[in-house]
């Protein structure tokens, strides 16, 4: 008699099953955590907690430490000017050293934003579980890794035990059909999806992005897509590994080599949703007529196509957002003057993002009175951009060209906007006060932010020619 055929499973279910150490109750289990990224903001109290218990880090090689949130993007050859930031970064380096954890210091060329460096170094691999005390850990799902953001108590749990109790998510397929038009990219897709389903639209679900538009995307674009899954309420965004994934991973410093590579690659190719596997929810989205997207409010789901008007407020949240942003319903965003431009963040600071922005900027000047900043996601991206001459394109136009870090995405360092300042930003959050108390953030793609920089207003990049 033949063995019963295993039931078809989604990618999420395969990753989940492969990491269950012990079931806990009907819908949760203890999951093995293969990798953890540690940054200076969410981990100090975690190290303090395990040290308070007299515990060692269970498996130092499973972790990688970096400072990114609080680090300055200028004068990196000097001590950090802000004493609190200096102490926080120093404490992180000490914690990592004391526990035998790899740490990339600020003067290491590989330093950068955790979600940029993990993939670059091959620390992020398909098929693994990866966590970090940062909600944008969903980024790494672009590799077919089960990756999600956690709190500091959970960071401590992973340090001490190598496992985490987790509740199994429901599954949600986002089918992206069609082909993106010129001047439209992954950032526009994710902003449009969030606008459609809402800031809590995918809560409780692990999203898997699928379809022709995903297959056609580069790894950089896929990371942008997965990065903002949390802005739709989902802790996890996934894309099945394919030839594009393997080509990106192969040869990375920490990627498997030789026979290990062959074996790993064979396993990774099995990591896709089986035919016939059922998702709890399916959203289908034809991207072929998508226009560049811009947010008008203080929540990432308050976004519209650049050629649309701001909708009439339907809720308290909408009215508060319009008030905070200094905008009115019915108004078109195109033509709105801006004061600042930020190109960077774990969403949009990869080499492709910088190339897309530079292509718009080339031969133009930043508009008078606009403060414009480019912050590459890592030292390696910075170096590559410089080899390609992109830094000159930006600096010739009047942009400030900086060292790697989170910078104006979270405004924890000295890159901070004054109250009332309006910013065209490639980052992931337009929350009140996110880029400085009272600052106003419009989320958009790198090409759109570049267009805003050179015209001094929010503008459809496709009209620039």
């Amino acid at each position, binding site marked *: 008699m033949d063995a019963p055929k295993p039931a078809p499973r989604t990618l999420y279910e395969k990753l989940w099953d492969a990491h269950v*150490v012990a079931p806990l*109750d009907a819908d*949760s289990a*203890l999951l*093995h955590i*293969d990798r953890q990224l540690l940054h200076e*903001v*969410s981990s*100090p*109290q975690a190290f*303090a907690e395990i040290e308070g*218990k007299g515990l060692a880090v269970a498996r130092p*090689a*499973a972790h990688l430490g970096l400072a990114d*949130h609080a680090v300055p993007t200028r004068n990196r050859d000097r001590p950090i000017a*802000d004493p609190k930031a200096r*102490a*926080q970064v120093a404490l992180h380096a000490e914690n*990592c*050293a004391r526990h035998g*954890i*790899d*740490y990339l210091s600020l003067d*290491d060329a*590989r*330093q950068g934003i955790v979600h940029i460096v993990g993939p670059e170094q091959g620390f992020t691999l398909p098929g693994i579980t990866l966590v970090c*005390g*940062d*909600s944008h*850990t969903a980024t790494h799902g672009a590799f077919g890794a089960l990756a999600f*953001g*956690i*709190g*500091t*108590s959970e960071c401590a*749990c992973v340090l*001490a*035990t*190598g496992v985490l*109790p987790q*509740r199994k998510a429901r599954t949600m397929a986002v089918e992206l059909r069609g082909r993106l038009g010129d001047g439209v990219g992954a950032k526009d897709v994710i902003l449009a999806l969030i606008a459609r389903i809402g*800031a*809590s639209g995918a*809560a409780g679900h692990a999203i898997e992005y699928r379809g022709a538009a995903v297959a056609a995307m580069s790894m950089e674009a896929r990371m942008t897509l997965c990065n903002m899954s949390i802005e739709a*309420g989902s*802790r996890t965004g996934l894309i099945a590994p394919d030839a594009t994934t393997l080509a990106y991973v192969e040869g990375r410093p920490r990627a498997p080599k030789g026979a*290990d*590579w062959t*074996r*790993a690659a064979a*396993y990774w190719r099995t990591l896709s949703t089986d035919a016939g596997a059922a998702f709890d929810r399916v959203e289908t989205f034809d991207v072929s007529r998508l226009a560049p997207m811009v947010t008008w409010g203080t*929540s990432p789901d308050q976004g519209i196509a650049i050629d649309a008007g701001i909708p009439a407020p339907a*809720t308290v*949240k909408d009215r508060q957002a319009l008030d905070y942003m200094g905008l009115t319903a019915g108004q078109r965003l195109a033509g709105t003057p801006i004061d600042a431009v930020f190109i960077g963040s774990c969403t949009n600071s990869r080499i492709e993002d910088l190339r897309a922005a530079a292509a718009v900027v080339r031969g133009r000047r930043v508009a008078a009175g606009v403060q414009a900043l480019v912050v590459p996601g890592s030292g390696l991206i910075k170096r590559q951009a410089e080899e390609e001459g992109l830094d000159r394109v930006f600096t010739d136009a009047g942009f400030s060209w900086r060292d790697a870090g989170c910078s104006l995405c979270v405004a*924890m360092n000295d890159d901070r906007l004054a109250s009332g300042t309006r910013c065209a930003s490639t980052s992931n*959050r337009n*929350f009140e006060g*996110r880029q400085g*108390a*009272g600052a106003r953030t419009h989320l958009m793609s790198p090409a759109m932010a570049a267009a805003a920089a050179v015209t001094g207003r929010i503008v459809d990049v496709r009209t620039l020619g």
Partner: protein
Amino acid sequence: MEPFTTLNSVAAPLPVADIDTDILFPARFLLITGKDGLGRYAFHDWRFDAEGRELDFVLSRAPWDRARILVTGANFGCGSSREHAPWALHALGIRCVIAPSFGEIFQGNCFKNGMLPITLGSEPHKRLLAEAEAGRALTVDLPAGAIRLADGAAIGFDVPPRQRDSLVNGWDEIDLIRARHADAIRAFQLHQQAVQPWLWTADTQEPNHG
């Protein structure tokens, strides 16, 4: 962890949806590396103006300045993973948040800190909001899974059994895992080393301190 069984308090009404972690704990205060004294940063930019003067905010007004319960809008605590958000609310005295839904990471962070996030449907949520606005006290009874109103009525709520047991008993998760699952973890890791050896190659190398 501090156990949570029953809690009696007035409840502060804050019926706004999508209150994010940057409102709960603005990023510029995240340079702090400890957990003490975080209460003043909770809702900072809604409580204080740029000069540090107190604004008119529900948690600053009697009787809600003593509230240990918050009744708020949907998707409360969305955004960042920062555990500083529940730490700061806790420092302000809040032990229980009642909302139609929560940001998932925030919700998990509450449970880890002896705080109870209660998810309620639209009708019971509206009723509690009215109680909160009237300044009447609520009693949250976690073992019974019920919120008792001043007039004696009760509203039931569900909390996943694992989280409920941890809260009621004040269990420490790390201690619990080490006590109950050490063998299972070891067995899992031996198996993974055999079938996915590439995930273990760095374990024998010296750390790299770039």
